């Protein structure tokens, strides 16, 4: 139970980074930390005590297996997280080229 609470604390730290900070790169780091905490939470749910990895074969006995369905979903989510972070960084580069700074209080003119 304490593991779930620690996951929630990691999520709140990511949210603190998004809401409070004024540097654009730190906002992107906060979004990535939130994604990591959600992935960890899903894998924590699907764990069975005393079970092995879900692979049939000679090395792994036919004992109880860990849940393979959350692992399949989070495998997709990790690669999509990489694509999202890369897209955010592309937008940040474009903003730096136009305004010359990463400060979000100075990026406020709706021209061009």
């Amino acid at each position, binding site marked *: 139970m304490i593991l779930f609470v620690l996951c929630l604390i990691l999520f709140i730290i990511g949210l603190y980074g998004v809401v409070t900070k004024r540097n654009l790169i730190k906002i992107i780091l906060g979004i990535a930390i939130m994604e990591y905490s959600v992935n960890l939470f899903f894998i924590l749910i699907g764990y069975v005590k005393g079970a092995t990895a879900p*692979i049939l*074969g000679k090395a792994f006995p036919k004992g109880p297996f860990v849940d393979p369905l959350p692992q399949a979903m989070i495998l997709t989510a990790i*690669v999509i997280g990489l694509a999202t972070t890369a897209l955010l*960084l*592309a937008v940040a580069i474009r903003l730096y080229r136009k305004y010359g700074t990463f400060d979000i209080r100075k990026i406020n003119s709706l021209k061009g």
Partner: protein
Amino acid sequence: MKGMTIIVKKITQIVAPLIFVYGIYIVIHGHLSPGGGFAGGVIMAGAFILQILANGSILSKLRKQESGLEFLESAAILGFLIIAGLGLLISSSLTFFFNFLSKGTIGKLISAGVIPIENVVVGLEVCAAITTIFIALAVFEKEEKE
């Protein structure tokens, strides 16, 4: 982006093909041991990124390579759709993604029907996508000064 010293270039010539072969191994054995298409694809992209970082970015060569990467990525995802559509045509009940090749014994390299072919196609697509992302994001300063 300037290149590195000659020691790094020579070591990269030896190490980068080994990383590429390791990525192909993880992609092909995706249905027997942990790994699969996504992990192997990113490792294959890592070999290309190592080459670009060690030798510096000569812009004319990169532009020619980038058009080849676009063709590879589009062809890979089209191949994935064609394999799924063939399942629609071949099966008796009209199911998308039907597993229509024969499934041999569990544990051999050629088994599990359509799954190894899908692993290879997804690995190629992920490799091309991540290399394109790296070239677009990390080499942009030279493009701006032109």
